[in-house]
């Protein structure tokens, strides 16, 4: 179990070093992305202005406040509460995010499936688990909203966050085929019969 501090953006070698069970803290930059953002990008063909190459994206739609633009709020948005949503709804977007936009890391909760695991293996990526529902804490890791794209999709815009010590995050899926969710899933399947037996409800 190794702890990694990654200054974003990072290269493929840095991501290939991550192994399931390691922890990661991100520094500098992080992008926020969500269902509607990726439907717009991949199903409706909308172009994005922001460059995601080598970056991490977090599955989020933050609570924000409109403020006067300043060095702390360059695009006139202040973060109020930034948390993480369930990743699995966005499973089919991992491959194009990595292939077409060069995204390296996906941060989310609840895990991703086999198609994402294959994309992580092929392109060199990983899934970092953050504690879902712990948004007040997560917000303290966000320094500012640096930029925003697809602003009409608010709150599901493409957000660029400046971050400070974003983590620790748990490497839950790596580029070598490892997935904590798959491991836990196999164990749960094994225990199902015992739970049903206790209930007198065996198949």
């Amino acid at each position, binding site marked *: 179990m190794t702890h990694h501090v990654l200054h974003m953006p990072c290269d493929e070698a840095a991501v290939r070093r991550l192994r399931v069970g390691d922890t990661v803290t991100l520094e500098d930059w992080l992008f926020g992305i969500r269902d509607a953002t990726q439907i717009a990008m991949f199903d409706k063909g909308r172009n994005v202005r922001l460059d995601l190459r080598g970056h991490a994206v977090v599955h989020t739609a933050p609570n924000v406040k409109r403020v006067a633009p300043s060095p702390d709020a360059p695009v006139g948005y202040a973060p109020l509460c930034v948390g993480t949503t369930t990743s699995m709804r966005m499973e089919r977007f991992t491959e194009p995010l990595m292939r077409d936009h060069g995204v390296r890391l996906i941060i989310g*909760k609840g895990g991703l499936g086999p198609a994402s695991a294959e994309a992580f293996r092929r392109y060199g990526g990983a899934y970092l688990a953050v504690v879902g529902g712990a948004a007040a804490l997560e917000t303290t890791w966000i320094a500012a909203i640096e930029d925003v794209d697809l602003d009409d999709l608010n709150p599901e815009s493409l957000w660029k966050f400046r971050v400070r010590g974003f983590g620790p995050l748990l490497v839950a899926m790596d580029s070598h085929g490892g997935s904590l969710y798959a491991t836990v899933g196999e164990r749960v399947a094994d225990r199902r019969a015992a739970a049903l037996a206790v209930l007198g409800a065996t198949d």
Partner: protein
Amino acid sequence: MQLDLAEIEEIAKLLYIRALKLLPDDIKDGFMRLQRAETDPTGRSLLATMVENIAVAERDDNLLCQDTGIPIYNITIGRDVAFDGTALKEAIRRGCERATREHPLRSSVVHPITRKNEHTSCGIRVPVLHFDFDDRPETVEIEMIPKGSGSENGSFLRMLVPADGVAAVKRFVIDRVIEAGGKVCPPTIVGVGVGGTSDLCMHLAKIAATRALGSVCTDPEGAKLEAELSAAVNMLGIGPQGLGGDSTAFAVHVETAATHITMNPVAVNIQCHSARRARATITPGGVAFGF
């Protein structure tokens, strides 16, 4: 007692914000209970982070979770209360809109077909309003529940038949908890509806999922079932966030309703670990806020 609608509007606003920031004491106690029992190192670490988050939200006066949810208001009206029902519904809706605009909160509510967000947390038939009546004199109680989507997407209904028996009801609950895995932000409260019509069954599951921890189903048969299921789901090893551990659910809650001779419906609705709710009790003496 005549209901003051300006006051109701203000209460509806305050309840939404309060629910998003302060976790009920019974849920905090539930975390302590799970922390004492959790044996998995990852599970222990994740539970500690969740507990830390509750303290950070209180310290920073911030939302516990970024998901402001679908707003639900449960209104219970006692005896000798005078009110204009239509105006009451409008007042609650205005309070919900004002919380969203004035705090401000992320509006998580969109039109189901156009996906347009009005940025008011309101829309067609939302906020969800439920009215009930009880025999408390001159008392109105409003419970507010911001229902997060991660756990609400863990909702399931099966119209089983009588020949399937109670065993199939139990299997359905276990299999849906497995299917939901980490997506519903465990540890959860698993709400189970048994009986009724299809819509009532689903509603029972929601009542069960949002009941306080430590409460018991008033139907002894339901109470027996929820005790059995509570023990069984925590044998599965799904754990906090689906990353493994003993703490899959705080509890399984069951609610029952009579059903048809040909029917055996079961529904599951799940509440995440950010099991938020807030309550206001209005009497001639004033307003008391709680959980």
